[in-house]
């Protein structure tokens, strides 16, 4: 797995470029790495080819916010909502609730060291 670490503005450009080139969004994966939340985007770009990009979001006590790509790629909608509700990272333009009840807050988020 060859993940490239990118910034949020870069992600918007990459999403537009890949959408134009006919790539597919596989999914968005959130992971908790202790001090940071990592949001990794997986794209299928051709036969046996994938591209992976990662945004690192430092934990700020639940006030993290990133911009999403569901306005470019409707396929990202559910995955962005899931990252938001499971890790407590707000994503612009999506409600941030899909699978979980309102009473449950960020179940996959761990305590910052």
């Amino acid at each position, binding site marked *: *797995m060859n*993940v490239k670490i990118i910034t949020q503005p870069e992600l918007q450009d990459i999403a537009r470029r890949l959408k134009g080139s*006919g790539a*597919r*969004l*596989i*999914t968005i*994966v*959130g*992971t*908790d790495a202790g001090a940071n939340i990592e949001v*990794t985007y*997986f794209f*299928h770009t*051709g*036969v*046996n080819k*994938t591209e992976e990009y990662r945004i690192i979001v430092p934990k700020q006590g639940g006030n993290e916010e990133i911009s999403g790509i569901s306005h470019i*790629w*409707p*396929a990202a*909608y*559910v*995955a962005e909502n899931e990252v938001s509700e*499971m890790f407590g990272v707000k994503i612009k333009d999506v409600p941030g609730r*899909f*699978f*979980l*009840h309102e009473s449950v807050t960020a*179940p*996959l988020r761990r305590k910052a060291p």
Partner: protein
Amino acid sequence: MRSTIQFGPQHPVWIEPLRLKLTMDGEIVKDVELEAGYVHRGLEKKFEWDYNKGAYLSERICGICTQHHSTCYCLAVEGTMKLEITRRAAAIRTIMLELERLHSHLLAIGLTLEAIGFENLFMLCFRNREIVLDVFERTTGNRVLHGINIVGGVTRNIGPEMAKEIMDFCDVMEKRCRDLESMITHSYTIRERMKGVGVLTKQVAIDYSVVGPIARGSGVPYDVRIDAPYLLYNELKLKPIVEESCDVWARSVVRVRELFQSIDLIRQLVPLLEGLPDELAAKSKTLPEGDAFARVEPPRGELFYFARGKKSKEMDRIKVRTSTYANGPALVPVIKGCHLADVGVITISYDPCIGCFDR
């Protein structure tokens, strides 16, 4: 005057709970809201335990594509350990995956036919599906949750006698599927009821990144077995089965045609077992470390597992992206503008697995 109809969570057309909030103008659906999460079990959190038990757990995400789930989990975890499985284990896994496609497609075709009122054909599909389950029982000891995958290989062998039984099964199955195909494709009523209903255009299919027979029924030739071959698929002859009419009919015809593709693949795979040593599982000398992901093609479309190890027996993170997770949101643009009477047949043509969707 506009009115609102709650389609689900409990509805006779679905086996599992999903809710569609339909805003109606007379008989036409003007707006639709999708709500899921009724069977969310928090399995991704539960995966943060012993990696050897993960295959057992992953089988229980879905009751239909159990073998695909455990295979994909094992491939992802084996990726974190850089573990190569034996060729015999790979062949047995691949045979099981194709058998599973057969029974899942028969279930999906049967349910679609039942949704339009053909209960006899539904029974016929299930009668044919029964013999696939019998083969599973003979090879793995279980009909539904097969439990043969472990990280590093499989636990059950397919010997020469069983290989012959599988080849004989292919002959019986092909004949039965030909009969079924003839009944479906030559039925004026089925064709007229399904054609032009639930059109998911190619562009929308690409925008929503739909997978499996839904994508291939909309003219998108995306099949992980060809686009990212795993196990022994790169040695097999197969082409993506694509239909261009983008409707319920196209999705059903893709499934019917894939029945024969699966039978053909099993016939290609069984001879590969001959002469291979009876080594079923490889032992790893390391623990899961780092990130890896795996993709397989279940009957409903691409399944994705992301695994992160932390050099311990417990996994750090497992993410599961199932087929219905990708296909579910694409229900919304299709249902908007359709008749209320078509909502059931459109949703069932997507072959939704809510257990997979919610996890």
